[in-house]
């Protein structure tokens, strides 16, 4: 089976693929340029960026797993009709309001930032996957039942592919909110490392902060354009009949 599965091209041309790799290098290029302008040590700035990106990556990874498990557990059935309104209320909760409590409980730590980021990132991913699997064709589900797919095979070969477009769409929205929340949380929690800490340190230096914000925007835009959008196109082709 494996030899034949998912032969769907994400990157239409080799140039596209090379450009994507180039985007991966952008943070480092940006760091060197930025550090040069601000007369900062590249290593220091690199560590700030790594600290922030790792927090977001860990939070995103946990959020994806929890959102996927939640969505496939509650997409149908009696439990869903009770749980979904509860989730809807929870996602409307102003998360920043919980930040003082979280800081009180876990202090100015990575745990506080990561937990806060999970709460921010998880809902768009959860609801995107949920709407995806709720709207899947009934025939597909019935054919899965007829062929006798069960347990792990059912999740791997059926539910996972069906939920991929929702996962990608939710990730784009969730990470967009995540980037925003990341810097804000780091500033509010006053972490010792991270971009938030960096921006706070140079709050009075308008050129440096403006350049930093612009650089971050370019980076996020490029990642979106060169990684997420091709993935989104691919995921939609995956379910195209």
């Amino acid at each position, binding site marked *: *089976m494996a030899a*034949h*599965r*998912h*032969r*769907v091209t994400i990157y239409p041309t080799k140039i596209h693929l090379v450009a994507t790799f180039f985007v991966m290098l952008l943070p480092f290029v940006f760091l060197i340029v930025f550090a040069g302008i601000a007369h900062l040590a590249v290593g220091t700035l690199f560590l700030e960026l790594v600290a922030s990106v790792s927090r977001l990556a860990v939070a995103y990874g946990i959020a994806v797993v929890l959102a996927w498990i939640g969505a496939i557990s509650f997409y149908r059935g009696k439990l869903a009709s009770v749980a979904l309104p509860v989730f809807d209320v929870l996602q409307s909760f102003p998360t920043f309001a919980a930040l003082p409590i979280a800081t009180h409980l876990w202090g100015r730590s990575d745990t506080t930032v990561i937990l806060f980021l999970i709460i921010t990132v998880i809902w768009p991913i959860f609801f995107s996957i949920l709407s995806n699997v709720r709207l899947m*064709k009934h*025939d*597909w589900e*019935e*054919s899965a*039942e*007829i*062929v*006798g*797919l*069960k347990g792990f*095979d059912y999740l791997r*070969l*059926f539910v996972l*592919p*069906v939920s991929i477009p929702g996962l990608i769409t939710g990730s784009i929205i969730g990470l967009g909110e995540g980037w925003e929340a990341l810097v804000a949380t780091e500033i509010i929690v006053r972490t010792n490392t991270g971009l938030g800490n960096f921006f706070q340190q140079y709050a009075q230096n308008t050129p440096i902060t403006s350049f930093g914000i612009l650089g971050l925007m370019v980076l996020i835009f490029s990642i979106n354009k060169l990684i997420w959008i091709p993935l989104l196109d691919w995921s939609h082709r*995956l*379910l*195209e*009949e």
Partner: protein
Amino acid sequence: MDTIITLDSVTKTFREGRKLVTAVENISLEIARGEFFVFLGPSGSGKSTILRIMSGLEKSYHGAVRLAPEIDRNDISFVFQQFALWPWLTVYDNIGIGLVARHAPAPLIRERVGRELERFGLAKFARSFPRELSGGMRQRVGIARALATDPKIIFMDEAFSELDSFTAAALRRDILEIWNQTKPTIIMVSHLIPEALELADRIAVLTVHPGRLEKIVRNTLPRPRAKRSKEFFALEDHLYSLVSP
């Protein structure tokens, strides 16, 4: 009769707003091993509902469906009206999915999928995705998927109704050939009298709202059936009078 499946007073009701609607009422019949059996009726006769009940897709109903003791769920397959192929899998993988679900060894999967690809002229399209195929080709994949597990009972829900008449005729010929070779029990739903007459050993005619069993007509016309013969037309008229009294 060597019965493979028995329906005993099967009734299915469902709620539509505040109303309770009866889709099928008190259906009792027996189908023999190796028989080609067709449920015939217009829209609203509950023929697809019966098929779904018999195949286990519909679990909430009154009455009983009994399979022969040696038959289990792995012996059943289903051909869907709208193909129900998984667009994220290739033709090869769609055909082999039932075997994968049964944890069949890789050589057996290769052999069976290869057999079905050859049988339906799909070998060149093994690595294609369903969206790259015509409707007729997709239904060939749907039938190949149903046959790859060597089922003892095949349910077919208006399997040719989404296809043009030429493709449908070709697929009917393919199905008859396979049935002649391996004699699985085929239980099919159709709203087309000539199709039912071409294929079936027996035809269960259903009434509309609710779906009740009007009559079971035995089709003794010799195979291959001459669709322009006097006997064929006579039986067609008889069925027509039963379907629309």
